Structures are given as structure tokens and as C-alpha cells.
């Protein structure tokens, strides 16, 4: 897009649209900081110390690390986690009894987790195989594991894990547009006439929420709605400002229409119902003025819509970098879009372009506003917090057998700033509940380390000490251990003259004097180290 077009596109804003950042406005992170940031975003964990040493010595290897990490299963999970911020399918809700599908004696919530992941797994399948992202709406297959296959009646080869498959009820396949999961998540009941689903298509795939559009009804419009809503929608300009395009989108989804009860009945696609739009609103299927006849053609239209690519760029940038894009970011978004297109619309190409960009690697900026705009300091998401602490200590927080920070049924994700249930937007700010979560997690992980390393003698993190090591009698071992701990937590060695080993020795002594128990004293030391801000911010 040339500058004039760019300015016109952003004419609603007085911001300095399309103006690229000047070189001296950004101070990049050092190589170690760059690698830690990329590792957190691409893998959800810290890099190893060996990797950090390599980048210290050869900073030019940063893109190679990125390429390596983009090939990993951990990156695929991060991709799913980021895209869930838009699709919002990981709600934790269980819509059906697995027994109805003949699945007995299973964890219902594990089944629900599989079902919720159906669209996200297609996304990561596309990423893994370097397929163009347009397959998200054009794939003539779905992906399913055993749970999805049995619950939704999807035929898969059965080799294990998530595999491509096809629904057995004869529905047309158009990527996520054909997925039972998506339309169970975004149902459309009664007089809504599939409009909820149509807006979901627009919001999730085009980043355009009809509900964000301002509307102003004349008094006569309101009166007309009361007497004949559907006719009013068809004939009133105020209504048509949205419904002229929304209703033809909605008309594609009548194969999913129905109010049957029971798993099988409620989740079947019925080709014979595809023409029910004639009875509900009467708008024929079309995509913003172009007539279409089924989900496959709808998918093709979406794939060709520039907004689909823009939305993918926005989703990836905002999800991976915690930025909220505005008009001032237009030129940057266009550059990323170009890289995405030149990379064949593969997600790896897009994410690679993001994490190697100047703004991504910014460690500081010229002023506070630019720091905020570029999110030069980022906050861990719930899954990243779990990953970082597990990477440092080996402890994975579970409650009642469920992963505390990634299972939406536990109830902690929203307290950590994530999305689940009614909460549909993440919070990237520090918060009192995140502080409390961090405190509790650090304490649990600290006790795990003390038991494992000092009681059972595995000595994985606390390698230089035993339960008999007291800072008064083993000062150098204690100080070296504190240095090891904080080095691991921060990804950087302490300064030689750092007062922190002495401060932690004082903490040990204080706790020991109260509790009289070296395990408690060591737990306090490890817990304090794990509560370093470096665990939360990167």
C-alpha cells in the first residue's frame, strides 16, 4: 500500500499514520535479552544457559535459534495459545456427556479440552506442514484425536495423536467453517437466524466485529421492529447497514441449524437444511455482495479477502507481543504482511518476521508512550508462568489432578490474566491476583525443590549444598548457591559485588531462627528467588 492509500485508510485517526519509527527511537535488547524474549514467546520457557552462552558469543545466530524453535511442538502449543485469544474455544465448558458417544470411564474435562482444540489443532497442523494459512478456511479435512473423532463422528486413520480426518455426516469441508466445535462454541438459536455465527466469522477471521459498529435507530425503526422484526431488518437502512452483509453470511450455516437434543442430533450437519435461509430472513448466501452457495465457496471468498491476512497478522502480533495495534503501527503491520505473503502465507514465515523485527527486539524506547506502545517489557501469560517455573524447578502446579495454569476448569487462568469462560480478553498488566499466584506457585515449587534436592538427594537445582549447609558455617557454598539460583531465574550472572547472597543468607537465618528447620529455611530462600520479577517480566 502506498503512503497516500495508507493515509486514506487511516483517515479516521489523527495519529502519525504510516510513519516508520526512526532508528534512534529504539534501543534493542542485548543478545541474551533477545534470546530470552524469543524463547518465552516461541517456546513458553526460558532458553538454557548453554544457549545463552552461545548467543553471547555469536549474536548473529539469533535467526537460527528462531528457525530451530519454530520447528518444535512447543511452538505449536504457543501458536494455539495465542490464537485462542481470538477464537476463544478453550472455555473449559463441557457441552455433552461423553457416554452419549459411547465413551465411558473417561475424564469429561479431558474430552472437553480435546474438543475445544479442534480449530486450534488445525491451525498448528497447517503451521507444522508449512501450508498457507488460508487452509484454515479452505482445508477439505479437519483434524481430530480419538476423543474428537468419537464425539463428533470424524473418520481418522487412527495412528494416534491428532490426525487429518473427515466428518462422517457428509458435510462440506472448509477448515474451521465446517467444525462442530466452532459452531457449538458460537451457537445461534431461535430468531437469531445464524447471525451470531456470521458475526463470529467476521470477528474471528476478519477481525471485524459487527457489534463494534455504532448504530442509531430512528424512533420509527424501533416501532417497526416491534411489529415485524425481519421485515424491518430487510427494509430499514439503519438495520441494513449491518444486515446487508451479515445475513448473507449467516445463510451459509443452516446445515448446522436445529434445536434437537442429544449429542448426535445436535451436532450433525444436515445438507437438506442448507436452504432453510429462505424461511429465516430470506437473504441468500453471499460474501459481501458476491453470491456463494456453500461453506466451501464461503471459505474460498474469505481466503481471498485481504482482511483475512490482515487479521492473521494482527492476531499474531498482538498475541505474541502483547501490543495493541493502532494506526501508528500501520507501516509495521504492512511490512509484516508483506513478509507473510512472500513466505507463502505460512505461519512460520509470519512469526519469524515478527520476532526478528526491530520493534519486537526493543528493550527500551525514546519515551514512555513509545515504551507502552511497543510493550518493551512483557508480562508472562498463565501458560508461560507455568512453563518458566517448571523449567527452573521441574515443578508443574496441579490442583485436583489438573494443570493449575492451563486448565480453564481450575479457575486460576483468569486470575493470572488469561482468558477463560466469561473473560474474553487477556490482561497484560501486573495485578494483585498475579502477585498472589506467583507467591503461591513459588512456595510450592520451592518445597518441591527442597524435597527433591535436599531430602531425596537429587541435587538438580541446589547442587552445592545439603540440609546441613548453613550460611554461617558454609558461607561460600551458600553464596554460590544463591548465585546459581538467581542466575537461573534471571538468565544472567550476578555482579561479583552483589549484596544479594548476603541478603539471602540473612533470610535463611531469620527463617531458621523462627522455624528451627533447615527445610523451611531453604524453601524460603528458593521461594524468594523464584519470586524475582524476572520470572514475571521479560
Amino acid at each position, binding site marked *: 500500500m502506498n503512503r497516500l492509500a495508507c493515509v486514506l485508510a487511516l483517515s479516521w485517526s489523527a495519529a502519525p499514520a504510516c510513519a516508520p519509527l526512526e532508528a534512534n527511537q529504539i534501543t534493542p535488547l542485548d543478545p541474551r535479552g533477545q534470546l530470552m524474549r524469543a524463547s518465552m514467546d516461541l517456546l513458553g520457557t526460558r532458553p538454557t544457559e548453554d544457549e545463552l552462552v552461545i548467543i553471547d558469543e555469536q549474536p548473529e545466530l539469533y535467526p537460527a535459534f528462531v528457525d530451530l524453535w519454530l520447528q518444535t511442538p512447543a511452538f505449536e502449543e504457543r501458536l494455539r495459545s495465542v490464537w485462542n485469544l481470538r477464537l476463544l474455544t478453550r472455555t473449559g465448558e463441557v457441552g455433552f456427556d461423553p457416554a452419549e458417544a459411547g465413551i465411558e470411564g473417561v475424564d469429561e474435562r479431558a474430552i472437553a479440552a480435546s474438543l475445544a482444540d479442534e480449530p486450534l489443532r488445525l491451525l498448528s497442523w497447517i503451521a507444522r506442514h508449512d501450508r498457507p494459512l488460508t487452509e484454515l478456511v479452505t482445508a477439505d479435512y479437519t483434524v481430530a484425536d480419538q476423543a474428537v473423532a468419537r464425539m463428533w463422528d470424524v473418520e481418522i486413520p487412527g495412528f494416534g495423536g491428532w490426525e487429518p480426518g473427515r466428518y462422517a455426516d457428509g458435510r462440506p469441508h472448509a477448515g474451521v467453517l465446517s467444525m462442530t466445535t466452532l459452531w457449538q462454541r458460537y451457537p445461534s*438459536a*431461535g430468531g437469531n437466524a445464524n447471525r451470531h455465527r456470521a458475526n463470529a466469522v467476521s470477528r474471528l477471521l476478519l477481525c471485524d466485529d459487527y457489534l463494534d459498529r455504532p448504530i442509531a435507530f430512528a424512533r420509527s425503526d424501533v416501532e417497526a421492529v416491534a411489529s415485524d422484526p425481519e421485515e424491518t431488518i430487510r427494509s430499514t437502512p439503519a438495520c441494513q447497514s449491518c444486515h446487508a452483509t451479515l445475513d448473507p453470511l449467516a445463510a451459509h450455516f443452516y446445515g448446522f441449524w436445529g434445536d434437537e437434543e442429544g449429542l448426535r442430533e445436535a451436532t450433525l450437519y444436515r445438507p437438506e437444511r442448507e436452504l432453510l435461509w429462505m424461511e429465516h430472513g430470506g437473504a441468500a448466501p453471499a460474501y459481501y455482495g458476491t453470491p456463494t452457495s456453500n461453506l466451501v465457496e464461503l471459505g474460498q471468498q474469505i481466503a481471498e479477502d485481504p482482511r483475512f491476512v490482515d487479521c492473521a497478522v494482527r492476531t499474531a502480533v498482538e498475541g505474541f507481543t502483547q501490543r495493541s495495534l493502532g494506526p501508528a503501527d500501520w507501516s509495521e503491520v504492512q511490512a509484516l504482511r508483506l513478509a507473510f505473503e512472500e513466505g507463502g502465507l505460512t505461519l512460520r514465515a509470519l512469526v519469524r518476521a515478527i520476532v526478528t523485527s526491530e520493534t519486537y527486539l526493543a528493550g*527500551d524506547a525514546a519515551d514512555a508512550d513509545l515504551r507502552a506502545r511497543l510493550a518493551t*517489557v512483557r508480562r508472562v501469560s498463565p501458560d508461560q508462568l507455568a512453563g518458566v517455573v517448571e523449567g527452573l524447578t521441574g*515443578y508443574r502446579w496441579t490442583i485436583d489432578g489438573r494443570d*493449575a495454569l492451563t486448565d480453564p476448569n481450575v479457575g486460576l487462568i483468569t486470575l493470572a490474566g488469561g482468558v477463560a469462560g466469561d473473560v474474553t480478553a487477556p490482561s497484560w498488566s*501486573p495485578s494483585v491476583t*498475579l*502477585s498472589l499466584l506467583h507467591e503461591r506457585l513459588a512456595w510450592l515449587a520451592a518445597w518441591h525443590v527442597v524435597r527433591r534436592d535436599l531430602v531425596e538427594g537429587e541435587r538438580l537445582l541446589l547442587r552445592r549444598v545439603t540440609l546441613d549447609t548453613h550460611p554461617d558455617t558454609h558461607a561460600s557454598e551458600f553464596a554460590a548457591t544463591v548465585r546459581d539460583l538467581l542466575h537461573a531465574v534471571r538468565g544472567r550472572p550476578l555482579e561479583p559485588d552483589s549484596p544479594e547472597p548476603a541478603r539471602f543468607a540473612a533470610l535463611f537465618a531469620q527463617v531458621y531462627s523462627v522455624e528451627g528447620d533447615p527445610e523451611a529455611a531453604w524453601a524460603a530462600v528458593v521461594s524468594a528467588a523464584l519470586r524475582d520479577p524476572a520470572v*514475571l517480566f521479560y
Partner: protein
Amino acid sequence: MPVRLHRRTVLKGAAAASAAAFVGLPTSGRAWAAPSDRKFLFLFASGGWDTAQVFEPKFGGAEGVDLPPLSEPGQIGDLRFVAGPDRPEVARYFARWGHRSAIVNGIDTHSIGHGSGTRFVLTGTSASTSPDWPTRLADADPIALPMPHVVFSGPAFAGGLGASVVRGGDGRLLELIDGSIVGRSGAPASVPASPVDAMIDAVVHEQNARFRGASRARVAAEHEESLERAMELEGRLFEAGLGETTAGLLGTALRAVDLMRLGLARCAMVRIPGRWDTHGDNTPQTRQFGALFGALDRLQEHLATTPGDHAPTLADEIVVVALSELGRTPRLNGGGGKDHWPYTSALVAGPGVAGGRTLGATDDGLQAVPIDFATGRPSAAGDMLGTEHLGAALLRLGGVDPATSLPGVQVLRALLA
């Protein structure tokens, strides 16, 4: 359990004393807390409630409004409502608490969609960056509280004020605060004794101070603020002995009130239970309104009998606001349900509220008519009442100048005593 005093606690006490000395007697000679000391409990019926069930007594209107079958008119002073033998809680509530309650009718939600209606009703705009009323009220508290706005359930729009919003986390919040969650975890541990906790906290504060730098100043300050709030919260919650879990609207509302009473929160949001989106069958609305007003009655009873910090009772300190994002059509549809309607009603009760009155108006067809914002009565020369005008009044009720966040928006002055 020892009580830990933190800088914030001390500051809050000092500020309260100072405010009391400055304000002197309660407003207008009443025993109400000053606006800046008022707390707000928001109750939200997600789905769109049928205003003709209680708030809009359209008996015998020319255009016809379908009221519940056993409806009968009720009136307390200038406050008119719909009651019925199948929901005696409504009449009982207004008989006991009508003098301190205002019904606001004919609020234009600017929408007939749930999502946009919720946003409009709670923020006055369609902008996704705009914080909702409780968040604005909570964020404006001169002395920040550990949990400025607690969302137990229901919607929340934090806008750019996310640090002021604490989400309830499906009941996990209290376990997290009192530390009992560590005993429920895999490889459980005992909760650290309070002195040990304080010793670790001291080191954590020092680590955070080291973390601070020019590029991280804002985040470090916000993190420090969160740490302080968390630490105070732990101490205050132990002090209060909170920990029992209660279910339902009343139980959750009382928990919210406790947090306010202890000076831990200024605002709270609680979802009103029930399926309010009654397209297919409108009858659940009657039962749900009965349950709502039963809970409101007991809530007000509790407030009226519990001493307040800044007023004789909590009833003079806590404003209760009940809202829904939409109304429902005047007539039943073919399926016995009612569809979305762009005018809704609200119930506001508490200190500073001009109680015993019905404000705003609709015609016989439940369509809003212009009103005089000073009187709340219909006026051909008046303006249509929108969600933003109600919100501006709520902000002013809480001592927040609406002109700052809602420039040019009229305040529904009639709501204010």
C-alpha cells in the same frame, strides 16, 4: 493470626480521618457516607430482563404490553411497580426499601445485541477501550485499595485500568488469598507462617527495587503496587476470618459487602443468576425477579443492620445498582417468549440516591420518551435517556467527576438527592 499493618493501611486510616474532618456532617444532614467513601455493588442480569415484570407497570395501555399473568400494580410514594402473588418478594422489597430505591426506566441501550448492549450499559460507549462504571469508580479511589473492583461473576470492561480489576476466578480468589490453595495442590505444602511470609516479602520488595530501571519504571511501579496490595490483602483477610464459601446471589453479594466493609474493595460485580434471554419462554423471568428481589431484601436488611466505616450503617455507605444489558419486547412472540428490546431499566438504591421515585419514562408501547434530566419526568423539550447519562450519575454519586471521562454528557441529576 497476627495482623500485618502496611503503609497503605495506615495511609487509608489517615485519609479517612482527614476526609471526615473536612467533610464534617454527612451530606444534607443525612447519615450518608460522603461520595468518595461510597462503595458500589453492581448486580447484572445477563441476557436482557423483561422490564414489564417489575419496573414498567403498563396496566391497560392502549398498545398493550404483556405483563405476567398474575400481575398487580404496586406503589410506594412516587415509585410505581409491578408485583404479584407469585413473586411477593417484589412488593416486600419496595415496602421496606422503596424509600431508598429509585427505578430508572426508558434507558436507551443503543443496541439490541447482548455484547454491545452490555458494553453500552456498563461503559456508555461502544469503544472496547472504555472502562466500565465500577472500574472507573474503583480506580478513582484516592487511596488505592487491595482489590479496587472485584468481579465475582458477570461482565467486566477494564479498559486501560486493568490493575484496578480483580477477577474472582470461579471461587479460587479466597483460597489464593488465604493460602489454602497450596494445601490443595499437587505436592502440597503448608502455608508459610506469617513471620516467614513477611521475611520473604521483604526480600521480594528489595528484588523488585533492583528490577526497576528507566525502561521498566512503569511496570516495576505497577508490580510494586500489586505486591503491596497482595500483601495487605493477605493480612486483612486473615484478620476478617473470611474463608467460608457461599453460593448464590445473596451469598456472593454478602461476600462482596464484607470486602467493602473491611476496606478491601470499593466496587464489586455479581451476576444475577438465571436465564434472562427468554426468546422461547418468558415465564422464567417472573420466578427470577422474585428470587432477585428476595435477595435484595435480605441484602438491604444486612446493610441496614451492619455498622459502616463512614456512616452509621452500611446501608448509608453502599450503593446497590441492578442492571441488564437489554429490555425485552412489549408483547410475547409466537413461542411465548420475548425478544430483544433496546430500552431497559435499572434499580439504584443507597446513599445519595433520590429514593422512592421512578425516573425516566416509556410510552404505552415501552418506547422511551424524552425526559427532563433534572426531574426525571417526561418532557417534550427534554432529551432521550441513554446508558451514558445513567453512568454519569453513578460516577457523580461516587464522587467522580463525569466530565473527565464523559465530556459533554449530561448527568441524570434526578437520580441524585
